[in-house]
């Protein structure tokens, strides 16, 4: 291999989180002026590898070379000094400032008196904009721009730091076709100027279109480096997912056709998030909702619960239209949700398991005056925690001090105890270990058997195939298919969503 051309070499990287080996002897080489994509399923180790390059994580073994020389990247500043710039998926922009001010934020041009030089800042920004040939003015206010243009500002911001290496994390997920073309043009122009680009994406077509080479990670191992021109979409999926995608079917009787519909979504739309979502959910069914990042899974789940508002459409429960959708009302109508962001939305960290697990149903433990019966509450929490197999010292332990999987069990337990008719779960097993995962799914299956309609919004395809009756496929905020899991395997599902 021609190592002369490598600007970055990550060699034999090993990263462990306590006993869990996340990266096992992974090597990744980036040549000067190439677009190198990094692909892999959830949990394959992509983000860990990139965080190591960014200096956010330390690694346990291996080495990083920059231009053939050993490089110490222990913190984010180290990466910046080497000219490695990161464009994150979330936009970090100030909407009420101009394009120029956003591009040079923290690095505004000054005149010789040390005063902000507006003209110079605008001029330099416009030069950058002209260089990538986008139709945008340096004086435009960012709030009025389209998503793609905001994304471009992030890239230009990286360029002002004289970045030789650009890491783009899922940059195309929020772009429509036309915006994507603009984006691809920019990437190609940067490449022509000698910038090396690491491109992280789930969108296989975009990856094939943009990349020179593709490195595929699978379960923390480098599963191959491919020349983009010499690999097909199917081969790439196989590399990511493995050949023998073992599919275990849900072990229960099939739902009868005439099972009543408990929840119906009619034409649910929310601008820029999702549109015309029509969905009927039968009692006792387990429906998976899958799609790539930015497909609208989380947004739909939150809209159903009333956490975020939607623009138009209807939600019907047992055939009755819900006029005002708020979490309080949906909870009363027996809809419960486990949100994606466990740490900030799932629980009250300083409160005990006892109190957290009874947050939704505290009234059940109180007399008419609202005075709580602590023993009753404690017995309930004890029993629930045992059922959910929460590992804890006692129910008085603060939930903030539990491990991620156990926190998730407490949250799910709280929802189960509220006796829902419809149970929404957004990425319920993210960051949860294998054992806890199977326990969580066991509980969901039990609930479905009792007639609860379960909706799982997830990007873990394997698991969806394992527990769901049907899978609803989302793409860019629209439902593009609804398939029984019996007719699916992982690779075809992957091909459908990307």
């Amino acid at each position, binding site marked *: 291999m021609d190592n002369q051309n490598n600007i970055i070499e990550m060699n034999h990287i090993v990263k462990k*989180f306590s006993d869990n080996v996340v990266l096992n002897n992974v090597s990744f080489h980036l040549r000067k002026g190439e677009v190198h994509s990094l692909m892999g399923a959830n949990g394959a180790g992509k983000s860990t590898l990139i965080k190591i390059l960014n200096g956010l994580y330390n690694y346990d073994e291996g080495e990083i070379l920059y231009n053939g020389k050993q490089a110490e990247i222990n913190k984010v500043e180290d990466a910046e000094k080497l000219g490695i710039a990161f464009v994150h998926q979330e936009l970090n922009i100030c909407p009420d400032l101009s394009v120029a001010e956003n591009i040079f934020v923290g690095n505004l041009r000054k005149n010789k008196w040390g005063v902000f030089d507006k003209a110079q800042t605008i001029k330099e920004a416009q030069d950058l904009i002209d260089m990538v040939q986008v139709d945008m003015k340096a004086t435009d206010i960012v709030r009025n721009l389209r998503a793609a243009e905001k994304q471009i500002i992030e890239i230009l911001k990286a360029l002002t730091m004289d970045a030789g290496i650009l890491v783009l994390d899922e940059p195309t997920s929020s772009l429509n076709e036309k915006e994507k073309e603009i984006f691809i043009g920019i990437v190609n122009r940067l490449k022509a100027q000698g910038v090396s680009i690491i491109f992280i994406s789930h969108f296989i077509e975009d990856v094939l279109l943009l990349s020179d080479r593709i490195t595929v990670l699978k379960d923390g191992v480098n599963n191959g480096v491919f020349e983009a021109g010499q690999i097909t979409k199917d081969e790439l999926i196989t590399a990511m997912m493995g050949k023998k995608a073992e599919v275990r079917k849900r072990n229960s009787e099939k739902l009868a056709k005439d099972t009543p519909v408990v929840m119906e979504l009619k034409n649910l739309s929310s601008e820029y998030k999702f549109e015309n979502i029509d969905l009927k959910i039968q009692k006792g069914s387990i429906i998976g909702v899958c799609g790539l990042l930015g497909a609208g899974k989380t947004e739909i789940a939150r809209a159903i619960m009333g956490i975020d508002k939607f623009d138009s459409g209807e939600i019907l429960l047992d055939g009755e239209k819900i006029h005002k959708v708020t979490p309080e009302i949906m909870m009363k109508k027996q809809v419960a949700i486990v949100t994606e962001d466990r740490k*900030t939305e799932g629980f009250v960290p*300083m409160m005990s398991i006892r109190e957290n697990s009874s947050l939704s149903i*505290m009234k059940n433990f109180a007399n008419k005056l609202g005075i709580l019966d602590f023993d009753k509450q404690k017995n309930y929490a004890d029993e629930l925690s045992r059922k959910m197999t929460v590992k804890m010292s006692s129910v008085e332990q603060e939930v903030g001090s539990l491990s991620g999987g156990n926190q998730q069990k407490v949250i799910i337990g709280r929802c189960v105890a509220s006796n829902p008719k419809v149970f929404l779960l957004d990425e319920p097993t*993210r960051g949860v270990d294998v054992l806890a995962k199977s326990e969580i799914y066991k509980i969901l299956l039990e609930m479905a058997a009792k007639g609860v309609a379960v909706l799982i919004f997830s990007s873990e395809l394997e698991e969806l195939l394992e527990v769901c009756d049907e899978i609803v496929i989302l793409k860019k905020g629209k439902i593009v298919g609804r398939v029984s899991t019996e007719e699916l395997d992982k690779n075809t599902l992957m091909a459908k969503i990307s």
Partner: protein
Amino acid sequence: MKSLKKGYRLISEQIMLLVIIVAIVIVMTFASPYFLTFNNITNIIQYISVYGITAIGMTMVILTGGINLSVGGTLALSSWFAAFLMLRGVPWFAALLAALAVGALVGAINGVAVSAIGIPPLIATLALEQITRGLHLVLSKGKPLYGLPEGFLSVGAGRIGPVPMSVVWTILLFVLFALFLSHTTLGRTIYAVGGNPTATKIAGVNNRKIIMLVYVVTGMLCSFAGLVLIARLDSCPVSIANKLDMSAITGCVIGGCSVTCGGKGKLFGTFLGIIIMGLIQNALDLLNVSAYYQQFIQGLVILLAVTLDAMKSKDVWGGLKRKKVGKAA
């Protein structure tokens, strides 16, 4: 045995505060012969009763993650109404209810501003402080009111044996609200709303209602504190309850209420915090420290207490934040 353990846990969290109280008492006993006299102790307790009653409300507001700077104005306006009505011959009991209604109204406006409109509590209550203070000046034309009826004075400023009524009211309210916060669904929900508003909302709680209620109750507690105060003074002065907000907040923060993140703090702590504040104030008076220095020192005390709180909170949330960075995408 079990209750003994429980009692120990309750005290262990507040042990530092008790140590500070004991230390101040010992030092002051030597420093001033007047300190440990019956009159002075009564004086301290009466002094802190107004701050104490207000601090009960302040504690609840801080628990929800808010702050209330309008307590002084609320107290001034509502006690002026009570005094005005009593001097016009309205039965003192009716005047008392009117004062509570005024407090509730100001609290409700705070509540709407914070929970429905979404104005940051600091700004909303700052505006209300100006409005209520200003209204008080307009209505009173800058003049104090004197000569409150006997019946009212006996309830507000009388004594049961040697114990002043203001102390009775303060302790009664502290016990009542401590039980409310620890033993009722509403009380626990106040903690939850402050501890993590989003999670609590998603769990089906109407946060707005809870926050609204807390501000209304706080307004009423301010009115009550005002009634106790005008009964003791037998007048309603123009500069009544000056800097009440700072004193109440200082007491809460010394007592362990967290102003950096909601959901943390106990009324027992606030009670001890208010006592410490009262002791410091009394010590400064007895040691003849000038009023200019007193304000300076109170500022230092609150800065110190908040600094300790911020450092502790960093441990709790900093740990979580670090983990969040490591969240697998």
